[in-house]
């Protein structure tokens, strides 16, 4: 069983970036650096979490995030178990509380959870002694995604402080946007959002974020363009008339990027709707750091798992004297 209070004072769980401080977030990014190197080795494995059991509890389908977590877990030599469950607990017939109790009874060390309801990760974290890592809960937060985004921005610019980052797309339904807003603001970036007004949530300005009306403004203003995926369901909800309309007005194209400064970079959390929110030549072009995001994703997740799985920094200092 794992002890709370990892070296950065993260506590037992990673539920979101909103509760974290700047030092903690930067500390996680620093911890991720050496893990990048491990993924470059021939034998991409270190024994540090050997014997720990990690459950990937995914109530929403997700291939990319789950695989990224699985790579991270296996490269740390942990044993992984994947549990997929679709539908709400009401449909399934087993409540989230019961799921939590079953996991506790199985003495699982860590749970990585993705769920369709905002607050579900925190709900689980409050009820089981295992470490809980939020892999996306409803529209609330997706902290490891934002951390890998921050790392990617830092890799390119050297620091996040003072950078102008604009998130473009469906902000209303995006947990990735929310986590990024918290992380970027705490690390000193200037943050803006841009998208159809129907998809900009109420009170977003109160979070410290400016709202840009047109994507051209965002391109001229920013150092970083973070492009969100537009989901088909938004058409059904009447937020946008069609994918074509969205692309016409907000699509990130090479044409529009001519307005950009030379060092503007483009991020995307994936999977991409090529030709909708982002054109192929942009996704595959020089400004795109989408593939480095994926690489950083495994390193960041390894760092988070490592930091949460152990946690008594005072012991570490005294132990150094004896382990030589």
């Amino acid at each position, binding site marked *: 069983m794992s002890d709370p209070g990892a070296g950065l004072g993260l506590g037992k769980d990673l539920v979101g970036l*909103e509760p974290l401080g700047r030092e903690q977030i930067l500390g996680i990014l620093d911890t991720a650096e050496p893990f990048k190197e491990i993924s470059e080795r021939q034998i991409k494995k270190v024994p540090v979490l050997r014997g720990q059991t990690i459950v990937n509890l995914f109530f929403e389908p997700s291939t990319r995030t789950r695989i990224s977590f699985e790579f991270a877990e296996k490269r740390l030599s942990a044993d992984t178990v994947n549990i997929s469950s679709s539908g*709400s*607990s*009401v449909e399934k017939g087993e*409540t*989230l*509380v019961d799921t939590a109790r079953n996991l506790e009874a199985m003495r699982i060390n860590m749970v990585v959870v993705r*769920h*369709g*309801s*905002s*607050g*579900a990760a*925190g*709900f689980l974290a409050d009820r089981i002694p295992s470490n809980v890592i939020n892999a996306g*809960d*409803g*529209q*609330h*937060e997706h902290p490891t995604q934002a951390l890998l985004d921050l790392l990617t921005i830092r890799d390119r610019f050297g620091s996040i402080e003072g950078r102008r980052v604009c998130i473009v797309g469906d902000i209303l339904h995006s*947990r990735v946007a*929310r986590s990024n807003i918290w992380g970027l603001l705490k690390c000193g970036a200037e943050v803006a959002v841009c998208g159809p007004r129907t998809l900009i*949530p*109420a*009170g*977003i300005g*109160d*979070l410290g974020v400016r709202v840009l009306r047109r994507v051209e403004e965002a391109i001229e203003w920013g150092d970083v363009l973070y492009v969100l995926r537009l989901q088909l369901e938004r058409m059904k909800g009447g937020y946008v008339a069609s994918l074509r309309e969205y692309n016409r007005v907000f699509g990130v194209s090479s044409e529009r990027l001519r307005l950009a400064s030379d060092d503007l970079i483009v991020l995307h959390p994936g999977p991409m709707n090529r030709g909708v929110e982002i054109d192929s030549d942009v996704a595959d072009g020089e400004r795109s750091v989408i593939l480095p995001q994926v690489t950083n994703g495994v390193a960041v997740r390894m760092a988070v798992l490592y930091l949460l799985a152990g946690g008594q920094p005072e012991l570490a200092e005294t132990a150094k004297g004896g382990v030589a």
Partner: protein
Amino acid sequence: MKRPVLLVGGRVVDPSQSIDEPRDVLVLGGRIEAVERGLAGPDEAERIDVSGLVVAPGLIDVHVHLREPGGEHKETIRSGALAAAAGGFTTVWAMPNTDPPLDDPAAVGFVRQEARAWARRGEGGARVSPVGAASRGLAGERMTEIGGLVEAGAVAVTDDGYPIADPALMRRLLEYTQTFGIPVLQHAEDRALSAGGVMNEGAVATALGLRGIPNVSEAAVVARDVYLAELTGGHLHVQHVSTREAVESIERARERGAPVTAEATPHHLTLTEDAVRGYRTDAKMNPPLRTERDRIAVREALIAGVIEMIATDHAPHHYEEKEREFDDAPFGIVGLETALGVCIRELVEPGDLPLSGLVDRMSCAPARAMGIEGGSLRPGRPADIVVFDPGEPWTVDPARFLSRSRNTPFAGERLTGRVRRTIVGGQTRYVGS
């Protein structure tokens, strides 16, 4: 034959007679006999010493969910009536969104009979009056047989938890109910605007990633209904006012003399959307807790009398149903046993409303506005009395509620004002410990 009761040494607060001074109260044959100083009752009278306590007309709550038939794990007519008495209430109006709903005379009659049966066995609490459904099945399409419901005991009609959405239907209801002199109670919500919403729309909902219900969902329907009340002359009662915009509509209605009454809940007077932070399902209700601006507007309207009365919207839910992801938890909180304590702490203690004003809002005004026999200690009236200590501090422990449910945001809170005795029709139905 009921034994006479003499309440000695208390401070009688009865706004209906403009009394706020030490007086004794004599109850004979289930009715108020006299309210004077130095009363000497008949020898066989039960003498109850209420020195240091307030004696007032029993509280009246026109918005309570008793869940029976169909939801007995949350509350029953009996447990709800007892919880009401523990809260100082002597009359409550039971909402029709039960299973089956109270949309036919048999269902309405069942509720009335059930409450009376418990009372006859000596295990009753507050009086329970059923409110009939306004539309069949609460579907919002066709009017129920309101005459039949009234005969069976219905005192009003509503589709609460749902709005009466169709303006044509609302018009017919406001017209037709005039035959019986009963109000139409409206849960004002535009479900197209509130669709999927689980809390107030705004910065807090955005940070939490929860879908919001905008103020206009309530305000637009209230504005429309006020015009319909004016057009038809029917009695519109606006339930659980939560927005400053609805307050404005009600104020204007008042100025134009439209037949509109309104209620506010203790939680909308006290809490805001910030109570939801941490995904607390005990702060999830419909209409949701709003911003501070809205809270202040509702509070000031209640103090000024623009909103005449307080009603709890007591909505019991079983622990397991609230112990869920926020999206999936049902709306509503209990309120009968905390109402007086919250209102004294929030309104009387800071000096914004005198105690007599609070008694008016919780007893006299609902009686007056809704045509309920009660809300007064005038001799000849039924002896529905609440005795309470207006200054006693106490901490809310939901485990000690008489209600079957525990879903309250006030758990662990210190409230001011505690019920000591509740008398219905001359019989003590609750004694506080």
